[in-house]
């Protein structure tokens, strides 16, 4: 790198040569300006800030990521064949470097009351459909990377289900990063809105062709109406040199149910913020996660569950396997408001350490302001138990295979929670492959 490394987000914010998306929409312009101001105001947070206490932004800033501008048009279906899961029957949406790519997508027939489209396209054709929804869940005041995403709004997936609409097959979003010859950041913004009683399954897969250095800064806004059900699997397998950021903002109305399974395997530096807020009673939120962190990998999870109303339940179950010099952070926070009686919340984080050089910072917190609640949290950091290893070895199984089997057994609970057999199998294989080459010191 020539000259001094960047020390700010200026490279992220340079104006787009062909103009901003949705230019001329006053409300969007206002949102963008507000986001820009927030980014400038926040500067680069240091490790004294609670949200960045365990994770330095230095490495990320130094890359000097610039916004993706060019659309990739040359890719054919053959080129991405290795990334597809043939047995997974889905409504497939492919995005390349943050841009919705219809030629690689296969939406198929969608039932009545279901709209699946690109954010850019919808801003052009029916911006009013997005007016209340864009930043409707993430809110006006945004954390740094959500604000960066808003300021640099580009494209994304929009899924809108009308009242009572039921989608049988999952929507599968494949977010592909490819051929970036200089450090670029793609900033997809996904908006998923389920009206009362609607039901859908969403699968997101973040993948790459090649091992290039890039950044994905994605934001998801999920809104569930009364009685709505969303099942949501997220699989992050970015390039080994990539930076990955997710901000997931979830809002749940009465009796709605959300089940999210987060699998984090790839990337060099990955940060995930899961922020959920209940707005109606008797809603259920189930967040599960599995992460692997090996040499040169950081997996950083921040979970924020806001029990603002009574009688909702939340589960946060995260498991990590760390090896080599892998690092992970689990910072989970459940806040129960004063009026939120009958809240049922349980948070757990378990870590399996395969090497002495791996490191995890885990901090589950409960902040309870109501007196009639059922809340628990637990965290473990342990190693493979010698008696389990001996049991397998005494049956003729080599020590490396025995270790792998025990790791897979540990991961099984979360992989099992995925919402498709084909996906379970694909993830299982990928986890197995990574463990096979995992250094144990």
């Amino acid at each position, binding site marked *: 790198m020539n000259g001094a490394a960047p020390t700010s987000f200026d490279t992220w914010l340079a104006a787009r040569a062909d103009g901003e998306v949705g230019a001329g929409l006053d409300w969007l312009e206002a949102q963008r300006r507000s986001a820009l101001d927030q980014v400038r105001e926040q500067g680069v947070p240091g490790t004294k800030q609670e949200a960045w206490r365990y994770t330095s932004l230095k490495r990320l800033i130094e890359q000097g990521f610039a916004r993706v501008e060019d659309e990739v048009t040359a890719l054919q279906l053959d080129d991405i064949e290795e990334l597809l899961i043939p047995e997974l029957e889905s409504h497939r949406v492919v995005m390349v470097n943050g841009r919705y790519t219809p030629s690689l997508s296969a939406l198929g027939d969608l039932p009545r009351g279901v709209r699946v489209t690109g954010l850019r396209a919808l801003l052009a054709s029916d911006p009013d459909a997005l007016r209340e929804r864009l930043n409707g869940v993430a809110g006006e005041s945004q954390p740094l990377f959500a604000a960066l995403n808003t300021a640099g709004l580009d494209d994304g997936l929009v899924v809108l289900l009308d009242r009572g609409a039921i989608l049988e097959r999952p929507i599968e979003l494949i977010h592909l990063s490819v051929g970036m010859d200089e450090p670029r950041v793609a900033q997809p913004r996904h908006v998923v809105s389920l009206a009362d009683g609607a039901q859908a399954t969403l699968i997101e897969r973040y993948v790459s062709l090649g091992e290039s250095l890039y950044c994905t800064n994605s934001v998801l806004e999920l809104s569930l109406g009364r009685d709505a059900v969303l099942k949501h699997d997220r699989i992050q397998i970015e390039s080994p040199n990539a930076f990955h950021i997710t901000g997931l903002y979830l809002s749940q109305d009465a009796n709605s149910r959300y089940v999210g399974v987060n699998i984090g395997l790839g990337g060099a530096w990955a940060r995930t913020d899961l922020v959920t807020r209940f707005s109606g009673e008797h809603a259920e939120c189930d967040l599960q996660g599995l992460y692997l962190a090996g040499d040169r990998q950081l997996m950083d999870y921040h979970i924020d569950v806001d029990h603002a109303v009574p009688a909702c339940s939340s589960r946060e179950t995260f498991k990590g396997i760390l090896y080599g010099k892998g690092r992970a952070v689990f910072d989970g926070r459940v806040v129960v408001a004063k009026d939120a009686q009958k809240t049922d919340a349980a948070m757990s984080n378990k870590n399996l350490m395969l090497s002495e050089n791996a490191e995890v910072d885990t901090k589950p917190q409960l902040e309870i302001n109501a007196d009639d609640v059922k809340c628990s949290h637990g965290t473990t950091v342990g190693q493979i138990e*010698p*008696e*389990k290893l*001996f*049991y*397998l*070895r*005494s*049956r*003729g*199984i*080599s*020590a490396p*295979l025995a270790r792998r*089997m*025990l790791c*897979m*057994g*540990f*991961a*099984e*609970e979360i992989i099992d929670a995925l919402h498709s057999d084909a996906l379970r199998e694909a993830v299982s294989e990928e986890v197995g492959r990574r463990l096979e080459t995992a250094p144990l010191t």
Partner: protein
Amino acid sequence: MLSVKGLRAKVGENEILTGLDLEVGPGEIHAIMGPNGSGKSTFSHVLSGREGYEVTAGSVTFEGQDLLALEPEERAHLGVFLAFQYPVELPGVNNTYFLKAALNSIRKARGESELDAVSFLRLIKEKLKILHLNDSLLKRAVNAGFSGGEKKRNEIFQMALLEPKLAILDETDSGLDIDALRVVADGVNALRNPERSMIVVTHYQRLLDYIEPDRVHVLAKGRIIRSGGKELALELEEKGYGWILEQEQAA
């Protein structure tokens, strides 16, 4: 087949085995009995290669090989099998997958081809039939949430599948009611053959009503202080261990 000579082993600073001698020939069943703390489990563990034991003297030779120099999996490849007193629960590890990994690891080590899924399932079915077990335990995680009886049956099932030359049954009868005991003993008896030797470690004579041993040894304070035929077990049942210990001390 198995020759143990002057075996001494300690855990930390405590010497548990103090000069143990034992010869087991092909097809023989030897019962090792003894009071609590006599070193029965330590002996089983040292034979199978569990960590945490330091052998300070003596030798263990199995079919001409120095067993103590081998890793646990290498002992299994030679045909040594330990039925655990407390089978370990492995949540998330599917029992069928585990059995297949074990069998194919052993086959591979012996230069045999690995079994494919179909041949493996056929073999499993056959073994289940011999032991009169149903296949429900195959779908579950290894020993996870199994009852005491189910765990012990799963041990015997593994033994049936892996066809060891030397099986060490470490207090297989502990924690079993009489019906479960009979099922397990029937399984063991079904696996008896002229090439397969067994060491049955037990505190009580009860198990030997069902599994008839060729030799009975009394282990006390880390070594074998008396050996005899199966009538020795009956004598122990009647009189307890005290009289032997007294005789030993007097001698």
